[in-house]
Every structure is written in C-alpha cells, then in structure tokens.
C-alpha cells in the first residue's frame, strides 16, 4: 500500500473531488439513459465507477485519459447490470426486479410518463452496441473518437451502429412526430 505525503494526499483528494464534480452529472445521466431510466441503479453504477477511478487516480496523470478510462468502466458496469437484469428476467420466478421497476416508475411519474416510457422502450429495442453509442454520441455529446475509445471499437463500426440506431429509433417513435413543430415533444 502506498503512503502519500500529506501534501500529496491533499492534492490527490482535491483532484478527485474536482473530477467527481466535473463528471457526476454526465456519469449518472449516461448510466440512467443506458439503463432505461433506473435512477437508483444509475447512481450505484456511477459510484462504482468513481470508486474505481479513485483507486486508479495515480495511474493517470492526464485527466482526459482518466476520463476515457472512467467512462469505459461506467459502460462496462452498465453492461453487467443489464446482463444481470436480463438473466433475472429469464429466470422468472426466482428473482424480481421490483425495486428497479418501482424506481424507474417513480422517476418517470415526475415527468412525461408516456413519452419517456416510449423512448426507453425504443432504446431497449436496440442492440447493446447500438444503444451504447447512440446514448454516448447523440444524447450525451461524446465525439465519435471519444466514443470509440470508451467502447473500444473502431469508429467505422460505431458509424454503422449510429446509422442503424437512428433509423430504428425514428421508426419506433414515428407516431410521436418528435421534433416536428414541437408535436409530441417534451
């Protein structure tokens, strides 16, 4: 175990606090959108990723690299959570997702329930690869290069995913006429 000098420890804590402050909102938002509106799990995932980032802080002098690594951790943790949810659904009778469902429901009740549910269902209908890059690039504002680094995939692959994801989302939500003269919008 490495023991830091007091000044170094203070500096490390300050750096971590700044990192959390900068990425807290986007980390939760990214996880929330990838998890289908599950607030509690999204915050849990974000905290897991921050804990890992804290442990890895000394390995990254460059905060940009730490940030990329952090979102890779976040996305992988989301993947694992989604995988467990899928496994639980397949093993019906053994497990329930009541807490998750209630939390997602409570969150949506405070907003436009129907619209959010429809968007969540449409996102859920995408493949994992499509959903992840759609959320990162189109909803969270990552560049294609950043998303490629986070997801560990080639930009060309992500472009293909984005194209298909957008086409699928537009088809699934066509009846809402989103973006057309504010009809069906938030």
């Amino acid at each position, binding site marked *: 175990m490495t023991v830091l000098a007091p000044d170094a420890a203070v500096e490390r804590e300050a750096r971590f606090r700044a990192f959390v402050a900068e990425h807290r909102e986007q980390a939760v938002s990214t996880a929330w959108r990838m998890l289908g509106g599950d607030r509690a799990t999204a915050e849990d995932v974000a905290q897991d990723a921050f804990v890992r980032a804290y442990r890895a802080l000394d390995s990254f002098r460059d905060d940009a690299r730490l940030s990329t690594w952090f979102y890779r*951790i976040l996305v992988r943790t989301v993947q694992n959570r989604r995988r467990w949810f899928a496994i639980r659904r397949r093993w019906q009778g053994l497990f329930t997702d009541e807490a998750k469902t209630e939390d997602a429901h409570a*969150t949506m009740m405070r907003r436009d329930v129907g619209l959010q549910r429809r968007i969540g269902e449409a996102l859920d209908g995408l493949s994992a690869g499509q959903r992840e890059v759609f959320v990162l690039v189109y909803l969270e504002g990552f560049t294609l290069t950043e998303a490629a680094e986070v997801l560990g995939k080639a930009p060309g692959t992500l472009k293909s995913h984005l194209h298909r994801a957008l086409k699928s989302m*537009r088809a699934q939500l066509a009846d809402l006429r989103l973006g057309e003269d504010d009809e*069906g919008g938030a």
Partner: protein
Amino acid sequence: MRDDDRQRDDLRSDDRAFLDAVRDAYRPEPTNAAAFDRALRQRLAGGARRSIFAWGGGLALAATAAAALVIGLRATEAPPPSPARPDGGPAVSLSEVVAALDVEQALDVEADEALAAPDDEADDEAADDVFLALTVLEDAPEDEVGFADDTLPDDYLALGDLLDVTL
C-alpha cells in the same frame, strides 16, 4: 473536431430535430450532488453499504448456482444433443456450458461464434449464458467478473479476456 467526429453535423435537419427532442425528453432529474458525494465518501471510506445490486447479485448467484448444478447433473445423465436450441434460442446454453467437460473449449468454439457479432437478441442471450456460467463456475462476485485489477480488455465483449481471468 476531427472529420470523423462530425456525426451530428452530417445529419439531415429533421434527424437533428428528432435527436434534440429525444435528448430533451429523455433525461434524468438533476442529481442531488450532496447526497451523491456523501454516499461516495462512505464507499471510499470502506464503511459503505453493499449496493442494492450486490445483494441482489448475491442472491442470484446462490439460486443460479443451485439451479445450474441441477441442470448440470441432468446434463451428465443425458448430454445435450445439439449446440442450437430447438426454439431457435442462443447457440450456447447454460446447461451446455456448465456440463461441458472442457469448458474453455466449449466457450472458445461456441461462444466466440455467437459473440462474433453480438448485435442480435440471440447473441445477447448467448453472452448472458456465458457470463452467468463463468460467474457460477467461479463462485465470484459479479462485480469481479470481467475486471482483473481494473484492467479492461480492449474489446468490451472479449470473452477471451474473461476466460483468461476466470478459468
């Protein structure tokens, strides 16, 4: 911005309007920063609660391990006839993985094929099976499966890396 980053700029205006509407409608409530940071500090201090999910995962492990054992025992009595399920499901089933004498070979051959293009439902389910089988076989906390000393494989679905970690 690099040329290959100009994803939104390259879109038609109606696509951009659609995406703007989706983004505005589908966003979480703002995070309670103080509560979030408080919980994070508790975790870092080591006195944190186990996450809700971890408890759920623990229960899931216990139950699935028992179920997998039953399936595995059945499978030893009557070996699975085919990699493909009659219902057209994933090529790799839990029972096949658990019952396989040479788990690594089964995963190498069948899972790699199933996961080569993990973008349809069957492949996702195959990935679920492999993930679960690895977890059950190793009796490891789910959070540790797929992560070795916080070093991530380049391919987030690289089962080879998972195998190296767990088998």
